[in-house]
């Protein structure tokens, strides 16, 4: 047991090491110079001397492996370096912006579940009737839209025409509604179909019939037997969408000018702010690995038979 955990941790470390090194190489090998960006921010006329000086200061004149070594040794001290743009520590800036992104992610998940669960259940119940068809066409349409475009339509309707909600920024709950709705709706499109087909599949199971034949109340059957049967595919998809939520927030945060880590990384890219980009890569990798592990654990909890099968296979 201990050995297998040790092996897993080792594998994780090797993976992260490889990933960050690869990212580091890509960053440095591709043309583009952060120094110009920094100088432009300072609004100075850049002379070769100045540029050389800054390059030396940031250690950009060293060979690649030395630079990576420095980054890594700093990382071991839990120091991700400082942003070239703002000059502040990456970790501090990150800690400041992450809650905003988490709030947005939570909001979108909420919208997604509020839309897709009832709609999927209704579509499964009234299979091939008008409600089912409508929800299928709607899902197809929404999932074919670029998410930022959907966001613009929502801004136009609710912020410009109806003036109900603020179009941008991060002042309070109200400004969270539109971005969450945008991201949540574009994800819900995927879920409605999945929930529908998964409920139809579990509804045709013999054990549902057996429960009915025992005179159990339909609502109880639905919640305790049928919904739970659909839980594993749902949890799997939820894990996947948590992971892709990180990508989605980048677009939506940029659209709504929302101060989260997604907007931060986009700004960092155009300035080639290496420490910020590397910090984001590391975070994304850890986040996704964490999400995947938790999804697996949740699936095992939801279906004890699954845990047993895995035990037999390993």
């Amino acid at each position, binding site marked *: 047991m201990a050995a297998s955990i040790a092996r897993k941790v080792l594998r994780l470390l090797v993976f992260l090491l490889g990933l960050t090194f690869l990212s580091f190489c890509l960053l440095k090998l591709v043309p583009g110079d952060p120094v110009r960006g920094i100088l432009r921010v300072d609004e100075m006329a850049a002379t070769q001397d100045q540029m050389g000086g800054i390059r030396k200061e940031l250690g950009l004149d060293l060979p690649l492996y030395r630079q990576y070594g420095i980054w890594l040794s700093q990382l071991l001290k839990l120091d991700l370096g400082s942003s070239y743009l703002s000059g502040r520590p990456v970790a501090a800036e990150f800690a400041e912006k992450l809650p905003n992104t988490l709030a947005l992610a939570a909001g979108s998940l909420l919208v997604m579940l509020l839309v897709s669960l009832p709609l999927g259940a209704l579509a499964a119940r009234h299979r091939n009737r008008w409600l089912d068809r409508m929800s299928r066409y709607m899902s197809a349409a929404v999932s074919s839209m670029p998410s930022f475009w959907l966001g613009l339509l929502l801004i136009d309707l609710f912020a410009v025409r109806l003036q109900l909600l603020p179009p941008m920024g991060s002042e309070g709950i109200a400004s969270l509604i539109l971005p969450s709705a945008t991201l949540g709706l574009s994800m819900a499109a995927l879920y409605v179909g999945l929930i529908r087909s998964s409920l139809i599949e579990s509804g045709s199971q*013999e*054990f549902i019939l*057996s429960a009915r*034949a*025992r*005179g*159990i*109340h339909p609502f109880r059957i639905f919640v305790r037997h049928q919904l739970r049967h659909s839980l594993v595919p749902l949890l799997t998809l939820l894990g996947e969408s948590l992971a892709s939520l990180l990508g989605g927030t980048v677009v939506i945060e940029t659209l709504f000018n929302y101060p989260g880590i997604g907007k931060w990384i986009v700004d960092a890219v155009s300035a080639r702010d290496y420490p910020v980009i590397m910090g984001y890569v590391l975070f994304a990798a850890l986040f996704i690995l964490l999400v995947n592990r938790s999804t697996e654990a949740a699936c095992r909890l*939801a279906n*004890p038979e699954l845990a047993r099968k895995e035990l037999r296979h390993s």
Partner: protein
Amino acid sequence: MLAISKLSIRSGSQELVRSLSLELQDGEWLGLAGESGSGKSLTAAAIGGLLPRPLSCSGSILWNGLELLRLDAKSRRRLLGSEISYVFQDYRNTFTPFLTIGSQLTELLEAHLSLAARDRRQRCLEELEQAGLPAERVFGSYPYQLSGGQLQRAAIAAALLLRPKLLIADEPTTALDSLSSRKVLGLLDAAKSRFGISIIWITHDLRHARRHADRIAVMRTGSIVETGSARQVLEHPAHPYSRRLIASIPPLRREMPERLAASAGLEGEDPLDHPR
């Protein structure tokens, strides 16, 4: 006590069961025989109102004077599981796979009776014991932890838990090996003699009919072609179809080729069939 008359079940324009009439006496064991697709299972499902939604049925099913086809959902729920109960062929899916047997048995009690939690548990354990199962262990097990024979006996325990007046067993032994199916039929026999329940036993295999059934009805393409006492139908089948059905029963033991016997023995020893 049960009188089915002119029952028709249709799917769209297709008539799957045609104007079927059948009566069942108190404490009677009726074997409903016929090949698959003859409408046996549909008839059985219609009694409990368990037909899949696209199917519609007409006619009348009287249960002690109560018209089952025009029963509201609530009264039907009260009836199912307590007065009329079912055992199905697919024992692997009789119980919901991620809930323990115990929790599903108590759920059944909860739905029909108000009992203290400890009494519920006690009732379930007694019933599992009756079915010849290691009660405590089965009660705490998930379905996948039991063998096929154990599952089917647990399913019968669930069906008998509330002492129903009618048990509808839809091919309960078809998917079992011969030893397990003998045990299952023995349980049904015991239930019949102890509690005087009536049984509708659906089967396509008449092998055990002579020993267990009082009366046999033979179905073909949606209607009953012959009814009579088990002995009469088995020994002097009147309808040519019954004759063919009976002729197709494999001879028991006597002339079973060695190879078949060996594989039948293997079937009983199916490694998948053992509890893990």
